[in-house]
């Protein structure tokens, strides 16, 4: 179905641009990712710094921070997600229209980070919503956020619109909304969405090494 890459390049040199519908759609999506204006903690300051003059996220078409989830394509989870905040984050994600992407920026959003032992800290937002790109660091430099954005763009460019491995948003049966956890007496209920959160089992031998 695709076009021969070499042929396309040859034609480009003669001024004829040929592309597949899929790459055109993906190019459009990747080039104007509007993030949700949503800062949680320290990483949000670096996120703001990334949008400011020095790093200028506008060069990647991602400077239009939208205060409403309905208008946003990208959720940058920038900071610690506490258990008290987690239902709101999931709800905001559910309110975003497909196609939607999530960047977990910084240690806290990925895994709870330095605060993971806290009683009110969620150990990674990937327990409740699918995360596309993770950016380690505490906080990551603004350049690292831009690098994460480029990783996401590369991922979007490879997305399939049809077939078995098509993207979630291209699948009519795919879920767009994920269950929102409820506040329990001691913890969130449920503590994770088992459908999307399946960490690898850690196997240790008697000495503690990896078996």
């Amino acid at each position, binding site marked *: 179905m695709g076009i021969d890459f070499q042929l396309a390049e040859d034609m480009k040199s003669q001024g004829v641009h040929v592309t597949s519908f899929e790459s055109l759609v993906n190019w459009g999506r990747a080039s104007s990712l509007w993030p949700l*204006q*949503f*800062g*949680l*903690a*320290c990483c*949000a*300051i*670096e996120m*703001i*710094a990334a949008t*400011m*003059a*020095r790093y200028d996220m506008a060069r990647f078409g991602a400077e239009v921070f939208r*205060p409403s989830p309905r208008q946003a394509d990208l959720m940058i989870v920038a*900071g*610690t997600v*506490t258990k*008290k*905040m987690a239902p*709101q984050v999931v709800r*905001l994600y559910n309110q975003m229209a497909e196609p939607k992407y999530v960047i977990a920026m910084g240690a*806290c959003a990925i895994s709870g980070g*330095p*605060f993971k*032992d*806290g*009683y*009110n*800290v969620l150990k990674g937002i990937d327990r409740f919503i699918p995360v596309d790109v993770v950016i380690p660091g*505490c*906080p990551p*430099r603004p350049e690292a956020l831009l690098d994460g954005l480029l990783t996401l763009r590369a991922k979007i460019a490879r997305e399939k619109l049809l077939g078995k491995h098509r993207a979630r948003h291209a699948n009519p049966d795919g879920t767009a909304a994920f269950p929102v956890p409820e506040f329990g007496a001691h913890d969130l209920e449920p503590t994770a969405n088992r459908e999307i959160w399946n960490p690898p089992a850690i196997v240790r031998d008697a000495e503690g090494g990896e078996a």
Partner: protein
Amino acid sequence: MISDPATSLTSAVLAPAVDDDQLLHVSLGPQHPSTHGVFRMNVVLDGETVVRLKPVFGYLHRNHEKIAEGTSYLASMPYTDRLDYICPLSNNWAYARAVEKLAGIEVPERAEFIRVILAELTRLINHTAFAGFILGDMGAWGSALMYAFREREKILDLFEELTGARMMANFMRFGGCRNDLPDGWSAKVSKLVDEYGPFLDEMEKFLVGNEILLSRTLNVGSLPKEVLINGGITGPMLRAAGVPYDIRKVDPYGIYERFDFRIPLGATGDCYDRIMIRFLEMRESLKILHQALDQLPDGSFIHPKAKIRNFKPPLGEAYARIEGPKGELGFHLISDGSTRPYRYRIRPPSFINLTLIEDMCLGLDLADVVVILGSIDIVLGEVDR
């Protein structure tokens, strides 16, 4: 004179003028562009007028105090960076000071100078970013913040060169600092300090006469002095109302007694004063920086007997406070003689400065709430800890 400042305003909280079903209940936050993070306010409106305002906290409650009670004294130092994440070095200093008080550690002179320089640079960062953020709250999202962050990046580059991180410095140690100043660093700071005055002029020209800013801030959110003191308000908020209370002067710590600077005061304590007082404080910070850089002595940057590992302060407790950029930042530590603090409590200025937010907002419009919240200058990492 108010006879009992604590109760005068709580009793003055107006009874709703119309029937309850006529009132509009609005939840501002936790995801809201002008709540400075994940802060939430449940506002009850009669038309546009605020008749009730209840802040809701805890969306960024990261259990710093609990984590600190389970780990060594040193390991809490990088966590203090993440309290008020706009000014980590002030937090470092407050914590280091509390531990030094708890264990009776002396700090060498050079380290004190380095600390003063860093704390005042942090104040510049905070107040500059404040000016950008509050303009964003008034609808000028963009220009002011861009200028503020442009200058902030210059200071962050200096921090990165000295401490190794743009924001999370983890720089101070009990009895000094982690490392000495790199070659040529103080010359760079001098250059920055020289260039900062013109930037402040530009920023003032940009803001001060602006009619929109004036009409949004004049006579908005002021309270009597006695009420503010009783409500635990500290920092620029209190000084904007004309109370000469700055811990650098009234309870001097470090080497602030050696420097010549003034405490700028406001008159009414409305939002306009709160913005302007920060510009004046930045000018004073520049003065302190000039003096500190001129007098910077040679010597050791850390006490030679300072311990990094297995640090055990003696039995006892200590409360130490510094004048953070947002107000009085205190640490209350209780040691039971082991390597871990028995009680580790932070007195967060942002949190306690919010005590009177309802009193400030009552009877004003919803749009004023956003400006008042911005003028309090909170950082959620410190509010919820």
